[in-house]
């Protein structure tokens, strides 16, 4: 039995304060210039190529990576500060965020040197958008049921099949895609999948849009019809991607974006309640503040443990499980607390607009990047139950 959980008490080091000041100043300048409106929900989910390049010029993309690949060799805690400040400001980070969070680190670990030298500096400059190609029409959470095939030919790897729910595919330069290179074995059903770097301009790739219930368009279906990619775009071990897929998950799952996605409604609620809320509102607000504080402390703790070289896989999953459920429920709680606002409340229209958007977005938060059910399975395994 191992039910031991560990959350080290991590405080952000002093260098983070200076960085936070720089990030806030940069964002204030961008807001003043009209790049984005922090009160408009959905903007953080949108992309802005020029903005991403300006972020890159600041050195805030791939900032933990080695300098020779364009990185800054700064700490994960410094990256944490940048990520949370951008998220809370609803800045349009969509173009570079996936590459910064997960595609870049995977390339760093598994891509051949010349590929790293080619691609990573461009990510750091904010020039490249990445898409993750894992889910298929017949496999989502059950990743290892993937059927899209990669076959080795004389010209390279030939890809055939369909990936779905691929956020950003319509604007992406590259995909990191999971393809079947061998059949699973009896002993290991996870065997036989390989990860590839795929240039989205490769002939034979078609991107079909899928519109979401929010009215936005992030999702796509990507069809590979004998698209051929270079031999050296294999990432890591052929047939062994399952070993690679899981190790990065703590980074993906424990970041501030896992509880701040609907945070703007809480800030707007505080504005609407004014400086002297009634007892009901004050109590409701206080609970939300306490919950947000606890989540952030958990998330920072995992970031610190990762920085220290630990592997808090269960703790990272706990952050995402609790964090996404919290951010999913937040619009509902804020709606209840806003129920008796005076009709003349100044920012009422803004709050209502934000609530409408957050309420629609909420449904996806416990699905993307590992569903609640998958996370709880991982946690149960960590507790020694399976």
């Amino acid at each position, binding site marked *: *039995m191992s*039910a*031991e*959980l560990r*959350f080290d*008490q991590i*405080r952000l080091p002093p260098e983070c304060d200076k960085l*936070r000041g720089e990030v806030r100043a940069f964002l204030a300048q961008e807001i003043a210039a009209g790049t984005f409106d922090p009160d408009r929900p959905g903007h953080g989910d949108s992309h802005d190529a020029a903005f991403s390049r300006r972020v890159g010029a600041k050195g805030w993309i791939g900032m933990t990576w080695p300098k020779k690949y364009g990185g800054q060799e700064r700490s994960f805690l410094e990256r944490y500060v940048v990520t*949370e*400040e951008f998220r*809370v400001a609803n800045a349009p980070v969509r173009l570079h965020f996936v590459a910064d969070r997960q595609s870049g680190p995977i390339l760093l670990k598994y891509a051949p040197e010349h590929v790293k030298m080619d691609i990573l500096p461009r990510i750091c400059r904010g020039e490249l958008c990445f898409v993750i190609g894992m889910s298929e029409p017949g496999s989502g959470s059950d990743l290892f049921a993937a059927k899209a095939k990669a076959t080795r030919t004389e010209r390279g790897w030939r890809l055939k099949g369909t990936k779905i729910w691929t956020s950003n595919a319509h604007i992406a330069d590259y995909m990191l895609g999971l393809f079947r290179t061998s059949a699973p074995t009896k002993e290991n059903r996870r065997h036989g999948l390989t990860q590839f770097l795929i240039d989205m301009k490769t002939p034979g790739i078609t991107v079909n849009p899928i519109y979401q219930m929010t009215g936005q368009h992030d999702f796509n279906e990507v069809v590979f019809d004998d698209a051929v990619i270079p031999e050296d775009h294999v990432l890591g071990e052929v047939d062994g991607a399952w070993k690679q897929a899981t190790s990065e998950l703590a980074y993906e799952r424990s970041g501030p974006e896992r509880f701040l996605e609907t*945070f703007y409604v*809480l*800030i*707007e609620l*505080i*504005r609407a*309640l*004014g*400086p*002297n*809320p009634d*007892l009901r*509102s*004050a*109590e*409701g*607000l*206080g*609970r939300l*503040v*306490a*919950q*947000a*504080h*606890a*989540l*952030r*402390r*958990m998330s920072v*703790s995992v970031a610190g443990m990762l920085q220290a070289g630990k592997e808090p896989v*269960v*703790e990272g999953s*706990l952050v995402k*499980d*609790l964090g996404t459920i919290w951010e999913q429920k937040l619009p509902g709680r804020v709606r209840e607390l806003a129920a008796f606002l005076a009709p003349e409340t100044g920012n009422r229209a803004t709050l209502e607009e934000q609530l409408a958007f957050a309420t629609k977005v909420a449904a996806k938060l416990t699905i993307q990047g590992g569903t609640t*059910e998958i*996370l*709880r*399975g991982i*946690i*149960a395994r*960590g*507790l*020694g*139950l*399976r």
Partner: protein
Amino acid sequence: MARKGAAVEPEGSSASACMRERGGKIVGESQNIVGETAARIFADFADPQTINRAADGAWKEPLWQALAHAGLTLAWVPETLGGSGASLSDGFEVLTVAGRFAAPVPLAETLLAGWLLSTSGMPSPDGPMTIAPARPGDRITLRPDGTLSGHARGVPFASEARHLALLATGPAGPSVALVERGACRVERGENLASEASDIVTLDRAEPVRVAPVPSGFDQTALMLMGAAIRSVETAGALETILALSVRYADERIAFERPIGKFQAVQHNLARLAGEVAAAMTAAGSAADAIAGADDFDDAIFLEAASAKIRAAEAAQEGAAIAHQVHGAIGFTQEHVLHRFTLRMLAWRDDFGNESHWAAELGSRVAARGADEFWPLLASR
């Protein structure tokens, strides 16, 4: 004794084994000699299974003697004032361990009383102590003639304490007073876990000593310290509850499988782990913040109030899940689970319940304004 408990709980006393295992882990991992000492003493003198079966409270005196002998009861009192001069962090570690064992002795109360007395430079007496007020709305007054009057409800272990450390409001502001229990009227009451939770009435009571508090210290500061203490204890109890529940799910067979193999039970336990994680992080954060702070400012208010709110929520959720996992056996007197669940639920009410702190915290956040909220959160 062919009672159903014996059948439902194979391998003898799984709870005791579990506690010993946890005690061992604490020793192995904490690198904290004070926490290590506390774990050893509790394992030796306050094994929950043994206490739960004890016919009387004869185990209490040896436990207290061992804690006192090791310097743990006055951990937060400097050596110059008769204590052992441990750091705030070490004291919070001791209380986490105490929470893991849920031992019904006034260790937390004596630590807090000693700390309160020493903030005013007063030495601490021997023996168990408690503090009053223990609720935010209660007030004790220091009268111009130097006597004390007032009424405090829910004072933990007052009837078992030798002395009380009081925070009293006088003509010149707040003071700390030390009184003998005999100088107060103590009406015995009980909390959910049947521990003493008493009404203390002072009617021109003569203190042993009185001294003014340092500037900036007030009843809110005392309540915040108490809130942090209860949060830390709750987190400790939750850790044990998770360990007990996981172990039980692994041992209990139903439908020809350990119940821990069922996905529904696994997901309940994962939710429990989430509550434990939130409580231990929030409580640990508050303890860490207080240990590193000079005074009880807005940041400490956020930390300690949040810890109490989140720990209380976790106690409520966590107790429900743990009992669900344990089924009927967990609802019996003979099983140790209630020692932890009921204590956690009782602790919600001490030093300000979660509704009190939420209303206070919400009011403060609202008063600071929407644009100051994120900067406050991000500063921690």
